[in-house]
């Protein structure tokens, strides 16, 4: 028995052709960066961090149907936890700060979850957005979150310390750290999407009433999805602070929340590779537009976004995958 192909038509091409893009991706991600200049390595790190952030949105919004404009709140919590630990308590350990960041981010989502889940649809959207703003105004105003005094945010943070004697993070080795976390995040997303729980999220997105009648505790599933997404966002925030060595209130804001949203939409909602493809697309287009047409980037991003929603709803990843399949089918027709 058991094909578990999920597309409408099972693939007929040899597995080698299907595997090729994955191999290429791995080569790109693992081998290539060693040959890149530092600033490009940093951009690769940035892309992977945003890919993780986008997975957060993918889970809560694309899979579960809860459009949240406030994932940045947990990004912020993760980042500020690291910032506070490093700046106020001198804790630089990678392990401690990362664990603390992700834990606090998840806890924040766990606390906020029952509040935001009291409403749905448009109100949910606005409420998640308001929560993000609350985070923003807290970190803006309270001196505790502004170090050194007089600036917005926490600056001058060191690189995290691994406890391996003599080891200091370079741009390159930091990239690999991010890559490892990215791989873990992708793996978790993969397992989640194939699991019964993951399927239930899609069912909830399609229609809550029927899911309840089938025996699913819809509220609980939504809550778990929200907390899990919060954890991913917090992880992204943690890594972001390691990379930038700086965090500011704007990191809580809706502008931040827009990026993962745009990345998932453009990359392909509710797909495995959508978040990463979207993140890559946006980070790299942003880079190029900053060279060619500086200051026009938001216009380009907005336009890309609008065009995708209107004409390419399934997202780049799906269209690319379809093209690839068709090409493969043609090549192998004989």
């Amino acid at each position: 028995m058991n094909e578990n192909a999920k597309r409408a038509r099972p693939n007929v091409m040899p597995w080698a052709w299907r595997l090729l893009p994955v191999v290429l991706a791995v080569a790109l991600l693992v081998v290539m960066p060693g040959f890149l200049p530092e600033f490009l390595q940093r951009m690769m790190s940035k892309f992977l961090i945003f890919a993780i952030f986008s997975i957060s949105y993918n889970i809560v919004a694309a899979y579960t149907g809860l459009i949240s404009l406030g994932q940045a709140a947990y990004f912020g919590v993760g980042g500020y936890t690291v910032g506070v630990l490093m700046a106020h308590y001198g804790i630089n350990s990678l392990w401690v700060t990362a664990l603390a960041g992700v834990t606090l981010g998840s806890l924040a989502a766990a606390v906020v979850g029952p509040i935001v889940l009291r409403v749905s649809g448009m109100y949910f959207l606005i409420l998640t957005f308001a929560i993000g703003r609350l985070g923003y105004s807290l970190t803006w105003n309270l001196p505790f979150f502004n170090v050194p005094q007089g600036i917005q945010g926490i600056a001058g943070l060191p690189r995290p310390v691994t406890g391996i004697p003599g080891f200091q993070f370079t741009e390159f080795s930091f990239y690999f750290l991010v890559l490892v976390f990215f791989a873990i995040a992708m793996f978790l997303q993969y397992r989640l999407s194939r699991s019964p729980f993951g399927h239930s999220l899609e069912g909830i997105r399609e229609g809550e009433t029927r899911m309840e009648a089938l025996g699913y505790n819809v509220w609980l599933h939504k809550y778990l999805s929200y907390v899990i997404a919060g954890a991913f966002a917090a992880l992204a925030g943690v890594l972001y602070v390691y990379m930038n060595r700086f965090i500011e209130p704007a990191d809580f804001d809706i502008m931040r929340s827009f990026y993962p949203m745009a990345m998932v939409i453009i990359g392909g909602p509710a797909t495995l590779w959508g978040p990463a493809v979207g993140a890559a697309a946006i980070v790299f287009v942003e880079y190029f537009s900053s060279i060619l047409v500086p200051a026009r980037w938001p216009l380009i991003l907005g336009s890309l976004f609008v065009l995708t929603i209107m004409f390419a709803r399934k997202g780049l990843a799906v269209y690319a995958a379809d093209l690839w399949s068709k090409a493969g089918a043609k090549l192998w027709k004989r």
Partner: protein
Amino acid sequence: MSMFFTNLVNGLAMGMVYFLTAAGMSIVMGVMGISNLAHGALYMVSAYVGWQVFRGFHWPFTVAVIAGGVAGGLLGLFIERVFLRRLYKQPNEQVLLTYGFVYIFTNACIWIWKGWPRLPFTAAALKPVMIGGLRFASSRFLLIALGALSAVALWYLQDRTRLGARVRAGMDDKEMAQGMGVNMEMVSMIVFFIASFVAGLSGVLGAQVMGINAEAGNTILLQALVVVIIGGVGSIQGALLGGLMIGLLDTFGKVLFPQLAMFTIYLAMVIVLVVRPQGLLGRRG
């Protein structure tokens, strides 16, 4: 004491600006079910257009106000006709799409008007007014008067005209209303235009009080959302009540507890959303 009156007038004027912006958004949201996050961006574009007309072309202030309204209205209409119409009953996509427009419009304004952080925009033609020994910019009173007038006009439109009845019918069931001979396309267009026009007016007028900057797209959106939520979606009266409340809270808050002003307002919004999502005077639950 004079401080109190100055702040009161300022607060009411601000409140009127909030009301005008929120009213359009509230009606469109509550009655047409469309979430237009670009509403604040319409305000912003209109403010720039008004500035251009008044300071750039040196035409009379009244023309500037109307130009702003028309600019807002046309832009809103453009979004509705070309984009939103194809996303009927897809609220998620509507939200995402309109937020994309915020990015586009904000950057376009920076491009055209060179992104000056703040354009000063006070119609010098409006001389200050003296009341009881205190000096007020007459723009404040103009705003309050215009706001009150608009409130009455909009309320009348909503509750007492056939257009209003048609809109309310269409909110419940578009097909049914169409089946009864209501041209919903036309109604949608008209309502959206009016809402955007009013936002445009409030953009030019609001600029008198707050100046213009390219961040208005987001900040005004936030403020409008707060007012809409607290006042209640779909209700002109709610937008008025909410707008005045927030305007006063904001103005007095900045004076009395500047650190927490922002925070209190958002907290109020969160509380309302959780306890009484339909707002103080809202129509839809």
